């Protein structure tokens, strides 16, 4: 799903442009060996009355359950088992199975034995792609080799134009980055170095902008990294107080 981002360039100009997700080059689909198209389907396997946990609760003696499975088929709802599930909503339910519309979300840190050692309220941070004020150009330029050997780049979004004014803005930035042979840190905050948040509640990530020019065309890609390459002990440290 494409998004919009407000961006400032090296000249201090800002514009709001399109972010288009870069797709995998390998497109795969499945077929039978005879060439018939195949689709993935989700079907209902059990209902609340035929769920294994329900059956285990209903029959205290496993032998009774085994006999019942053979003679009565309580694990099958004739009307609904096998029904195709196109879409289902997800909800939170309390201990009695009643839906909760506004559950309180909390973060818990546990020790190796599974005991909770720390709790804190979960707060969703809003997206900061479209800031009210023009974002600050971070001024941080890193050689491409430094970026790819230091950060784990897990997402790439191509910055695209919706009109020719936006194209001129993006082309100028791509040309400048291509000349510098560097990637620019794209961030938020007073220094322009704070992480980007793609959508509400998303993990903050660092953005690195890479620009190339091909004749009259250009390619400006925003790579996102959720952290640096590091040891097992070092990973997951970001954001843990």
């Amino acid at each position, binding site marked *: 799903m494409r998004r919009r981002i407000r961006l400032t360039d090296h000249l201090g100009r800002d514009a709001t442009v399109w972010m288009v997700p870069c797709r995998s080059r390998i497109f795969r689909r499945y077929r039978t060996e005879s060439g018939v198209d195949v689709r993935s389907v989700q079907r209902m*396997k059990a209902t609340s009355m035929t769920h294994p946990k329900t059956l285990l609760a209903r029959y205290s003696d496993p032998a009774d359950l085994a006999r019942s499975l053979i003679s009565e088929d309580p694990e099958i709802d004739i009307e609904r088992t096998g029904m195709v599930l196109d879409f289902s909503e997800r909800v939170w*339910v309390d201990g009695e199975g009643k839906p909760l519309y506004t559950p309180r979300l*909390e973060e818990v840190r546990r020790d190796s034995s599974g005991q909770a050692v720390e709790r804190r309220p979960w707060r969703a941070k809003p997206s900061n792609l479209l800031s009210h004020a023009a974002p600050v150009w971070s001024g941080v330029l*890193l050689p491409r080799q430094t970026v790819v*050997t230091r950060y784990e780049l897990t997402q790439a979004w191509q910055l695209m134009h919706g009109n020719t004014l936006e194209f001129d803005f993006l082309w100028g930035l791509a040309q400048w980055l291509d000349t510098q042979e560097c990637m620019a840190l794209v961030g938020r905050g007073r220094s322009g170095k704070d992480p980007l948040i793609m959508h509400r509640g998303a993990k903050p990530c660092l953005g690195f902008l890479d620009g190339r020019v091909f004749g009259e065309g250009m390619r400006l890609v925003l790579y996102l990294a959720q952290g640096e*390459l590091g040891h097992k002990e070092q990973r997951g440290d970001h954001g843990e107080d």
Partner: protein
Amino acid sequence: MSWTLRLQAGDGLDSQSIFVLSRLDRKSPWQTVALDLTGQACRRAMVVDEEILPATGVVASSYETLTGRALGKDEIVACDVVGEPLPILSSTKDSIEAIEPATAEDMLEHVAVAVYEVQAVRLAPSLEAALRMGGIFRTRFRPRATAQERAAFLVAREGTIFLILGERLEFTVATREAPLPPEEDALDDDWDEDGWLRMDEVADTGTAPFDTRTLSISEETS
């Protein structure tokens, strides 16, 4: 779980390297839980046909033909964009893979889908020296047989070697006249993407959002 990777950079035993790989993940020690008004932990559930069902154990996934005939995994083959079957590539665990220098630009054609920490059982001196100098190398690594070829990049940082498994991406050269490409998988206007993603993330992975305060770039790089 760990895997072994054998690499050959040239001729001779000196050019052979053997690595043990262990996958790195970003699992946070913080787990997000949902609580009801009394402070009791809640469970996730799904609403199907106006009935609330447990989130696990009620859905079966299968491959079917368009006429509804269910197929086993051994009855289907992965195909490319024109429908030609893709070859099944064997695991690299029993083979010696070639290694070749790569550039940062090569890596930027991919995004990381997995990162492995590499312990060297045997490290060819020439490869060690090149990695210390910031070199990037490309090889093949497949933990299991697959139809999907992914590039594996070997890099070193602060004395540790990493193998980054990358997925190649499709880029477009934007020109002034070219319109914005049509959006794929367009979602309905009433789709609550944020809410859906948030609930999925919390419930499926148990991971907590990062705190922005500690994720910043060092000043030395400016």
